[in-house]
């Protein structure tokens, strides 16, 4: 039976470990989501500080003495220890680090470290160790032979002082603990922070033993049941017993505080006491006797009570409490996953991710100017023409240029502007689009900054600063200037033509034939044109008609502009091909624009966004991720396992107390 139980707990621990791993992986993806990180969540701390170290390990009982500043925690602790292990000071918030007393079994530090993974263990030197101001979370430990072999006894820093780090350290101990001795005073039993602390502890299934310290006996005798009631109502603690310690500084200093034990229901607990087990009854008898007559006996009362606690049962209770909290739909992992899902949806909405293009939206990239494409195209043809056609076309090209000279002069084409095929203007236009896109991305980021969580804001703020924007623009400008458009165009044309050749050989052949034929008929057409005085006029007409892709495309396949009027005949003859050529040409242009838009997106990615877009995307779609699913599945498993283990436990519980192995 015991082994079966152990098996369950081991499985439970493995599941917890898997869950922990999966959460770790999931965490890396959600930095940008406006969700509290798992490591800031109570359930996560419980997982790492209670469940992982303690699930399935042999049974011992971690007992922590906690309370507000100057309520006498250290005095109570010292008295339990029977030695001055922790320094008690009249100044508040003196204890900065926990002190742990361990039975000889735990003398290996490694074993202790396993139980307290978040603390740096240091061997206890003297009682003032715990007062040491140190950034690290230390834990001082020493062996204590007086302690029962299954008890680990801890003194903790306060839970209510202005030194918040103390709260954190105590919270950490609280998670590891099974039994918590709540040192209360009449001043502090109803403080909000104290209440909150013990409410948490109670919710996590810790066994809480209230100890009212600094009680004026007998004046406070009628009050303490009221205190206890208020405390229990405020914190949800359901104690079995309560201890009182008198306001006696001398006794406290001498570690001779005479505790007295009271059962719930106060001094009028006699009739209830009858229902209690014999052992407890005996204990109470002793306390009454001890408290009244022999103060020395009272000093060991609390320790005796701890000694007889059913260790295994309380331990299971605390483990179960922690597991319940982990799986709690309102505060545990389910709630966290729900928040995660919401935040992911929000981010998806705000960032526009999920729409196709996400953060970078390049709109309306200008079409590359027709003449530029034509030039590249004709170059491409030229080197594939037979020699005779090349010669003719070259001659015509030269002649065309010469003929165009006066026209150009007349039109006052600015001299020295080499790229007269509109590439310079195109460049400017491109740059305008680049700027527009940057502006849009910036606005998008601004919106993210306004709506996103702290992590996202942090990331985006740097990108949006004026200096960063200036640097980005100058870098983009440099990249844009460096970019060789003609090279890009050549590559694209080359690829498209080859594609054309392989996919639509008949069209390719036709174009090729036109090219050759046009070279052959060129002298003829020009002779005709010149004879009717049409030569230069053709040149004049060419640029006018040049905007229409069809004509110019025809012109390209024919040669230079000089022959357009004549060669239109040839093209018209191949009329069926013209539509195809036109659409093919448009595709070529669109292909170029698409490549340029991709280029810009790449640049922005590289110089502005970095991994941000990708990270946002990952965070926004985290719900679909493998890690999210693994956490969800792990959680389900955990819930199932816990349920099973618990029900078995409950079945056994009714009969016997669990033995430790």
């Amino acid at each position, binding site marked *: 039976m015991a082994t079966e139980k152990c098996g369950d707990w081991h499985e439970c621990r493995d599941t917890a470990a898997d869950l922990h791993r999966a959460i770790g992986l999931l965490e890396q993806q959600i930095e940008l989501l406006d969700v509290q990180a798992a490591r800031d969540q109570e359930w996560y701390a419980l997982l790492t500080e209670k469940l992982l170290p303690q699930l399935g390990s042999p049974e011992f009982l971690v007992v922590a003495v906690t309370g507000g500043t100057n309520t006498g925690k250290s005095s109570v602790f010292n008295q339990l220890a029977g030695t001055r292990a922790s320094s008690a000071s009249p100044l508040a918030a003196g204890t900065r680090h926990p002190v742990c007393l361990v039975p000889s079994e735990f003398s290996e530090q490694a074993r202790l470290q396993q139980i307290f993974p978040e603390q740096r263990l240091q061997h206890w030197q003297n009682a003032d160790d715990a007062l040491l101001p140190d950034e690290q979370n230390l834990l001082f430990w020493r062996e204590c032979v007086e302690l029962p072999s299954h008890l680990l006894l801890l003194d903790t820093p306060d839970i209510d002082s202005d030194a918040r780090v103390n709260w954190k350290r105590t919270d950490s101990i609280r998670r590891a603990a099974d039994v918590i001795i709540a040192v209360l005073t009449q*001043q502090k039993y109803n403080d909000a922070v104290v209440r909150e602390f013990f409410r948490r502890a109670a919710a996590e299934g810790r066994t809480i033993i209230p100890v009212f310290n600094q009680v004026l006996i007998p004046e406070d005798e009628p009050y303490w049941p009221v205190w206890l009631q208020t405390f229990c109502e405020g914190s949800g603690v359901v104690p079995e017993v309560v201890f009182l310690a008198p306001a006696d500084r001398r006794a406290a200093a001498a570690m001779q505080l005479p505790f007295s034990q009271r059962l719930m229901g106060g001094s009028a607990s006699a009739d209830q006491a009858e229902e209690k087990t014999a052992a407890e009854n005996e204990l109470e008898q002793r306390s009454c006797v001890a408290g009244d007559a022999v103060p020395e006996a009272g000093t060991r009362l609390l320790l005796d009570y701890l000694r007889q606690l059913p260790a295994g049962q309380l331990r299971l209770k605390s483990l179960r409490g922690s597991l319940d909290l982990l799986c709690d739909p309102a505060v545990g992992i389910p709630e966290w996953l729900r928040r995660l899902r919401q935040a992911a949806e929000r981010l998806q909405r705000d960032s526009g991710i999920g729409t196709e293009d996400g953060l970078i939206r390049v709109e309306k990239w200008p079409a590359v100017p027709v003449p530029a494409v034509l030039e590249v195209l004709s170059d491409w043809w030229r080197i594939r023409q037979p020699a005779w056609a090349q010669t003719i076309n070259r001659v015509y090209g030269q002649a065309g240029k010469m003929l165009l000279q006066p026209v150009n002069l007349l039109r006052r084409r600015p001299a020295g502007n080499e790229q007269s095929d509109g590439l310079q203007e195109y460049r400017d236009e491109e740059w305008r689009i680049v700027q527009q896109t940057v502006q849009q991305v910036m606005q998008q980021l601004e919106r993210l900054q306004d709506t996103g969580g702290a992590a996202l804001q942090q990331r985006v703020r740097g990108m949006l600063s004026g200096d960063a924007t200036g640097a980005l623009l100058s870098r983009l400008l440099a990249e844009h200037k460096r970019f060789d458009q003609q090279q890009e165009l050549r590559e694209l044309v080359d690829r498209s033509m080859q594609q054309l050749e392989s996919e639509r050989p008949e069209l390719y052949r036709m174009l090729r034939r036109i090219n050759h034929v046009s070279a052959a008929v060129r002298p003829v057409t020009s002779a005709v044109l010149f004879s009717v005085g049409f030569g230069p006029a053709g040149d004049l007409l060419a640029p006018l008609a040049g905007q229409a892709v069809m004509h110019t495309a025809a012109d390209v396949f024919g040669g230079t502009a000089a022959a357009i009027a004549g060669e239109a005949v040839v093209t018209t003859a191949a009329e069926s091909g013209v539509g195809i050529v036109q659409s093919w040409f448009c595709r070529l242009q669109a292909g170029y624009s698409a490549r340029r838009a991709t280029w810009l997106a790449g640049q922005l990615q590289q110089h502005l966004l970095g991994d941000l877009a990708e990270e946002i995307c990952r965070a926004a779609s985290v719900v679909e991720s493998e890690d999210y699913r693994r956490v969800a599945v792990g959680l389900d498993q955990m819930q199932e396992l816990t349920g099973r283990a618990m029900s078995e436990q409950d079945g056994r519980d009714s009969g016997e107390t669990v033995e430790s192995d």
Partner: protein
Amino acid sequence: MTAGHERQHLALLRELDELLLQLREWQGLSVAWKPASSLRRNTAAVLERVQSLRVRLDSPLVVATFGGTGTGKSSLVNALVGEEVTASGRQRPTTRRPVLLQHRDLDLTDSGLNLKQVQVCRLESGLLRDVVLIDCPDPDTSEGDSPGSNLAVLREILPYCDVLLYVTTQQKYRSSRIAEELIQAASGCQLVFIQTHADLDSDIRDDWKRQLDDQFLASRIFLVDSRQALLDQQEGRQPAGEFRSLQRFLQEQLGSSRRLAIRRASLTDLLGETLAEGQLAYGELSPHVDRLREVMLELRDELRAEMSAVLTQELLQNRGIWERRLGTAIVDRWGLSPFSALLRLSSGIGGLLASLSFLRARSSVQMALVGAVQGARWLKGVGEQQAETESLNRLSTLGIPDHLLRSASLKISRYRADAGLDRMDQQSGRELDDLRRQLVRMERSFLGDVGQEVDRQISLVAERLTRPVRRWLTELIFLLYPVFVLLRMGHNFFWETCLAPLLGYAEAAAPLLAVEFYIPALFFLVVWCGTGLVAFSSGLRGRLHSSIQDLADRLAEQQLSEGLYPDLEQECDEIDREVQRLTELRQMVNDFRGQLARSQVSLGSLRISGQPDS
């Protein structure tokens, strides 16, 4: 009230009103800067409180207890008035409804306190002659300030308190919740620090003072045993020890003559604190504002350099127009002569061409060269056109490419956001349009300058070229050919055909020169004139070139007097003034506190950044 006291009171009121007036005035100014507007909002709230202080400047001080539950607030109040009026107990919390203790004869209807909320006790007690005492609920048993909770009740009362008796014990003096609440409560209050439970606890005052020192000015801390003190008084004894000192201290410090001083201190602390916070926020963003200004200057320089380069190029490119204008100027100066007639003729044709090019003039530089008068007319025409079409693109012709402007406005808008200036309307085109408009303004003034400069240069060169010696020499050389032809013709006409045969020098009259002579003569005349013109204008060109270069260089160096973003620059200046104003206001508040040295008021208070220790 003594006459001296009254005078002092009136003087204080006057000073205070003056200060408030200044503050209101300052608040009325609107500055489009985030920290400025948030500071104004904060100050509005504070001014309201100040106003309520101002109304009850001379009413009894409101003294309230403040401290954690169970620290003995009620016991202290009972001990202070010498009888058990407010329940002190062992259950936490004991006091839920505040108890207000006032003198029998006092009327509190004007005090602003919500008397319905508190339980009022009218007593006859020494201390209550000068103050109103309130026993407040604790701030540390409530987990939030939901209505009706102790914390909510406390927070409602605190703004009306002038002095807080901050009560603590050995257990609670480092309680975080109370410390946080005190920071909120202490602004505008004076504090008295008291450790109670002297009978049970150890003396922790030194440690407490150390903890307080960061944020509070605590000159003195009392350690009292309230229970004993109450017992003593009930049994007709004077309370002894520290409690007696506390009583004396309160009587001295909170007496009616101290009211003004304390309220003044509270008031100035309140204002000073708000302003100090504001100054901190200003200080954080000021560097960004400076950076914005710097960037504006950088951009201006950048655009200016670009502009100068384009100007120079255009000036050099449009040399033809220069030459024609120079020709006209020279002709005007030359007077009537053969060569000037030729020049006139050629410039007449040139003028025709110029008017053609005027029609085609595309840039303002060309316009400037054509002539300031015509240029202005042209520009006016374009301006009207622009008003019609709202398109500004056409006018930014100074050669500054649009993309530079875009980059500039993109950058500026980011720096603007950094500096915390209110964000511009989301319509992103506005800044760009502003920038263009500004450039057009600059261009207009530039056009005037360049036009004048061109006129000056031309008249200078013309002056030099039409010096008499040069003129005569030119005329002489030019006349050589016509004279030669005339001589040749005269020789033929008079001598060869007429006089020579008559006088017997020739056998027969030579024939008159025929068309064969006149055509070449005319031809060579044209060539001669042409050569002359070319020679003249090449000389002219040489001179012009150097002076154009000169002009271009000077233009390149010329400072653009106005910035590119006059509005934004104005805003930055406004921010500077605002920072300055705030400093002055703080100075004023500090001055107002002035003589009120620490020695005079030995109560504690919240520390305000930048306030010297006493």
